[in-house]
């Protein structure tokens, strides 16, 4: 089972993504609610894919993304963004995010995306 790390500052989103992914054959190995914890958890759990919320307090998703990519250039990070954040998403792509998904999303969208990325 591919291992997933979920990063989002709201418990609701973390629970939503966790529920959707666990129902579809993924193993959630960790959760984080800010960028700093995300990096720590990445090192601890060595997941296959990371879902990363782009707007979080303390340390933003993009900074965490860059740090993770620095540590592991093969890290696969998928950005979770809201509508209207094109600029941030573009920055994320430049910083090494592999792709992104836009809220609100359906279960099948995120499942297919994570699956595809895990298999890359």
């Amino acid at each position, binding site marked *: 089972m591919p291992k997933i790390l979920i990063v989002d*500052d*709201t*418990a*609701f*989103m973390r*629970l*939503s993504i966790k*529920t959707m992914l666990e129902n579809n054959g993924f193993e959630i190995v960790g959760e984080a609610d800010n960028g*700093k914890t995300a*990096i*720590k958890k990445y*090192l601890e759990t060595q997941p296959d894919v990371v879902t990363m919320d782009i*707007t979080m*307090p303390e*340390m933003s998703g*993009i*900074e965490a993304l*860059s*740090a993770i*990519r*620095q*540590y592991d250039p093969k890290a696969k990070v998928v950005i979770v*963004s*809201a*509508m*209207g*954040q*094109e*600029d*941030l*998403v*573009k*920055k994320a*792509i*430049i*910083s*090494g995010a*592999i*792709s*992104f*998904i*836009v*809220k*609100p*999303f*359906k279960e099948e*969208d995120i499942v297919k*995306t994570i699956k*595809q*990325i895990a298999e*890359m």
Partner: protein
Amino acid sequence: MSNQYSNEPMLEMYIFETSQLLEQLEQAIIASEKSSSYSQEAINEIFRFMHTIKGSSAMMLFNEISALAHAIEDLFYFLREQKPKTVDYEILSDLVLEGVDFIKVEIEKIKNGDEVNGEAALLIDKIKEFLSLLKTENACVAELKRPEPTKNQQYYIAVEKKSGQLSKSIYKATVFFKEGCEMENIRAYTIIHNLVEFTQELFYIPENISENDESIIWIRENGFQILFKTDKSYEEMHEFFMKTIFLKELILEQLENDDEFEKFRVPKKIIIENSEVKMPKVSAQLSKDNVVKETTTTSNQSMISVNVEKLDKLMDLVGEMVIAEAMVTQNPEIEHLELENFQKAARQLHKITGELQDMVMAIRMVPLSTTFLKMHRIMRDMCKKLGKEVQLEVIGEETEVDKNIIEHISDPLMHLIRNSIDHGIEENEERLEKGKEKAGTVTLEAKNAGSDVLVIIKDDGKGLNKEKILQKAKENGLLEKNENEMTDKEIYALILLPGFSTKESITEFSGRGVGMDVVAKNLAVVGGTVSVESIADRGTTITLKIPLTLAIIDGMNIKVGHSRYTIPIITIKESFRPKEGECFKDPDGNEMIMVRGNCYPILRLHEHYRVHTDIQRFEEGILIMVEQDEKALCLFADELLGQQQVVVKALPNYIKNTKKIRGVAGCTLLGDGSISLILDVGGFSNSYAM
């Protein structure tokens, strides 16, 4: 909460989080309003809250809520970015609070399983209008687009690589993305970002994929077209494109020549851009900070939110354990045995269960601050509507009460605060005439008093009018006693009766006469009481007395014939065996006794409950003097059995629904397995006491 949704953890989480956010939002707005300015911090906070609510509501398909949150988010985005100088903060606060109220109402509907059918369109329009007004008044330089577009990039030409030119293959790719994947322009950008490494002469349509809507629509209709040259084979390129996330369709053609490239190759407009591909400066900075090292943990206390149902179950279990403990240590089989070691172990067990009990109680205790905070909002709304100036002073909000109780206090408190402002505090002019300060003060205080918590609502308004109250009571036939014999306290207590109101006209907030008695009822549910004090022109003070713990009390077991009863220890003043002839009868035939100069009525429990007992004479039994709410009486029983910690269990419904039994607060199991009824001293006092 409706049980229907207890299987839906996501919905519960949504309700919980959103409710919390709304509360924080309200506080932020009211605080900003008070200081007549919205700090950058507050604006950021409010923006983030609305952003989160927008996102989660959309995920749960609550689209009206999401749209409303979006409108407010846009408004605060503008405030954050443009920092306009001319803003009517009062209207802003009103608008946002209106939005908060809308969402609150919808959340209630969700909680109760009702249809979530509120329409936010009107409010959204108001908010958008306000935003346009802000924009015109503050003459924004450019139409603020979200997000800011990056430089217009017309063409992109890769840095020429050294390898031989002639072996390059030429391709044309057209990519269609899946419907609903959103931000197709950025997805297109991602492809280009990944292509540049191994391609030369890369062109694409549409060109401005960093712009917003237009390129997205073009891509949706015509697909994203890319022309490029590369060393890679067809299969390799096909594999590359097929990896695109949210790919719907790919058309990949290998071209004979690069004629199609001609239309892109216009010499004068060539811009050689390298910066797009470089890794951003962010990473360079971070390597300095070396974030990969262990970061210090946050200084917040670690908190965990627990489902109240679980806590209730825990309470029940602890209660059962206390009973079970009694059944072991007070088992009749070992009653007469001398078991030293056993007793030692029993004491240890008792100590531990006691600690466990205390801990569980403590967990359920919640400070009153959240409830008190809500009162600020009510204050504000009422003051605005009635045009009065009132300050709210809060003392002792850190005082804790059981979680159950908090829910029953909220509504009564709101009503009492409304009363104070509506009835109590006079209009500004009137106050000044009386020599008072223009702004009225309502003080909300909470403190511990023995095993109760006192919540006091005090205002410095005009006080209660005794004559009017007596008048109204007489009119409605509510007077039980002769008015001359009533103390002030008793007169004021009349307002707690149903149907009572001395207000001439009914306002939106009060005057319907259903308020105070509902307050008293709500309090009674949790075992609390209301008392009223007032001084004409100085103000009114209402005191709510609430017991700290409902479920486990220290009780004294007593015997009456074959029946067992338990009296809450805190109500017992003393117990004694009267001497022959000490008791007498008063003119009405009621039995009484004098103790240290005071007269107390006697209640024969065996008569009251019609239980047979051999002990009929006072000198053979025992008199227990009990007191509650300043009313005292003596209970006559056969003998005292001993003190015990007792778990109060409510009487079963089939009894409660059949007949209201006065004087019984509940029941419990004794150590020998028999049932004991817990006496409610207050229930006796009302009918018998002085």
